[in-house]
């Protein structure tokens, strides 16, 4: 079973339109500095909602929420997403 970070990375790979491979980025690396655009971040948000069966509240729809894999994971945890048990 993949971890939350792995699932986030799969979403970024499919919808982030990053000019660099997501595998080259660490969880704390800034996604905007690595090419994530405002529009692509909307797609990432929608794909994360589908993947984790959640809905981002308006208060979390800001640039900092999607700043890094780690930042996204932290927000998902706050929305009740649990790390899969191995």
């Amino acid at each position, binding site marked *: 079973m993949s971890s939350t970070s792995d699932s986030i990375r799969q979403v970024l790979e499919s919808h982030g339109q990053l000019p660099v491979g997501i595998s080259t980025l660490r969880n704390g690396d800034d996604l905007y500095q690595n090419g994530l655009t*405002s*529009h692509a971040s*909307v797609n990432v948000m929608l794909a994360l909602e589908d993947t984790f069966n959640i809905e981002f509240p308006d*208060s979390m*729809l*800001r*640039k900092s929420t999607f700043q890094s894999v780690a930042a996204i994971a932290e927000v998902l945890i706050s929305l009740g997403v649990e790390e899969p048990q191995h």
Partner: protein
Amino acid sequence: MSLALASASTNSTPPRGRSESRTRVGVDVQVVDEITVSLAAFGERYVSRVFNAEEVAHVRRHPSTAASYLAGRFAAREAVIKVLGVDSALAVWRDIDIVAQPTTTPRVVLIDSALELANSLGITEILLSLSHARHVATAVAVADVISTSAGGSP
């Protein structure tokens, strides 16, 4: 694609008691194909989450030109967001209306949080210019920021 907010001062050292005028500029370019991909992947959920009721209705009436139209609207909001200098929160995003005009370029109407933000910055009006090409839409937003410096008579 996005470009940074530019802010230029036209009168950086006003005399005491005089108003200072600064100009804030925001610019954005949106690739139409990216909108097409989003429409294919997320459909109406994408449109209704990002755009307002008027824009959703426009897309329903004109599906064949939806991607180009939405690219312009997205670029316009991003340009305004850069003028306001905010963290691109969608909450503020939805408080920016781009209102179609019959004969001129669309007008920017701010409500609620976006209006409060503009007021706090001394912005009373944001002018917008939009341009569409086959593959991209681009927008430039400009606002004068008026602040009155404290002080006695010169």
